[in-house]
């Protein structure tokens, strides 16, 4: 493995990196939705009262 290499096509490695890419997209969308859904409630909980946030 030592020495410079031109990357060759390896489907299993591509799938591995693809899985990380997919996870990143899912997490971006999923956590974004979660933030919109429970964010205001969490803010109220954190600042300690209904009078403050939102």
């Amino acid at each position, binding site marked *: 493995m030592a020495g410079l290499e031109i990357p*060759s096509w390896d489907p299993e490695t591509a*799938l591995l990196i693809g899985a*990380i890419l997919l996870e990143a997209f899912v997490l*971006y969308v999923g956590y974004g939705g979660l933030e919109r859904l429970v964010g205001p409630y969490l803010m109220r909980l954190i600042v300690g009262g209904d009078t403050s*946030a939102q």
Partner: protein
Amino acid sequence: MLSSLLSGPGFLGTSPEMLALFVGFGLVVGVLFGFFGMGGSFLVTPALLMLDYPAPVAVGSGMAFVFGTAVIATLKHHDLGQVDYKLGVIMITGTTIGIEVGRASVYYLESMGLAGGVISVAYVVLLGGVGAMVTRDALRGDGGGGIDHEAADKDLDEYEIPEIAKTIQWTVRIPPMVTLRGDVRVSAWVITAVAFATGVLSGFLGVGGGFIRMPAMIYAIGVPVPVAVGTDLFEIVFSGGLGSYLYGQGGGVNLGIVAPLLFGSALGARVGSAATAVVDADGIKVYFGGMLLIGSIAVGIGEVGSYLGNPTLELLGLVLVVGAAVVVAFAVLYTAVSSLRVTSRQQPSTTD
């Protein structure tokens, strides 16, 4: 194909305890990355080395984690219009070659049995150097290191190009010249040189290199701060993706490490990023600098422990690295919650 991924040692090979540890550590790293805009990967590779993962796995998995984090952060910066795609594409070539040089060096050192030691020493120097710089600037009140939250809120037209960048732009005029966002005109060779140098660092240490590349973009190329941040992340998506692929071909990417780290860090980054709206970063940067310094000492202690075959010292190093990150992440969260409560008491009728 997928079943081989899931049943292989890369995923189920990680015990539930380690998965939980990685999710928690990812959460902490994410808070720091979201708040300070850098430092996300500083701690992952040294921690993996101290957990006795082979150097290519520690560096390769660290790089794959950086890749995933960069994808998420780039999506956000794209939405804010803070990515210069032309600059990013030019940088990709230099960074890619640099990463391959760094990666080849890791495998070469590994073949001689020196990789773990050399990488650890490089981390001690790097963490110590950057930590000392951030601490010094924070104590002076210069606010050095990471994203300047106030600067990041300005319009691109309001940015002044640093004097050193102007000098470079006027001195190095080797064609082709490129016009970038913010009306910056610079030689493509300057961009490529910056990209190559940071690429070598990325490939060797498994880090995104943003802590070097961002200041280099600002001071050597003259790019406005938000564009430097967004473009840096965009560029890491490609260079980190390719670096991860190359390490993955050699078995250096462990999905059982990367997936839980990313799961935690994506959430942490949202929290850390939200905290920037309510917390003055300058007060906390001194802790961030301190964390990097402690990280530097911890890696040194861990390496001495490994050299002497003393597991207590190795454990102490790991506890220090993780502990320092946890303390600073909690300091960010505590300060954010305190600021929110103070603001809500001062303006009880104001909506947020």
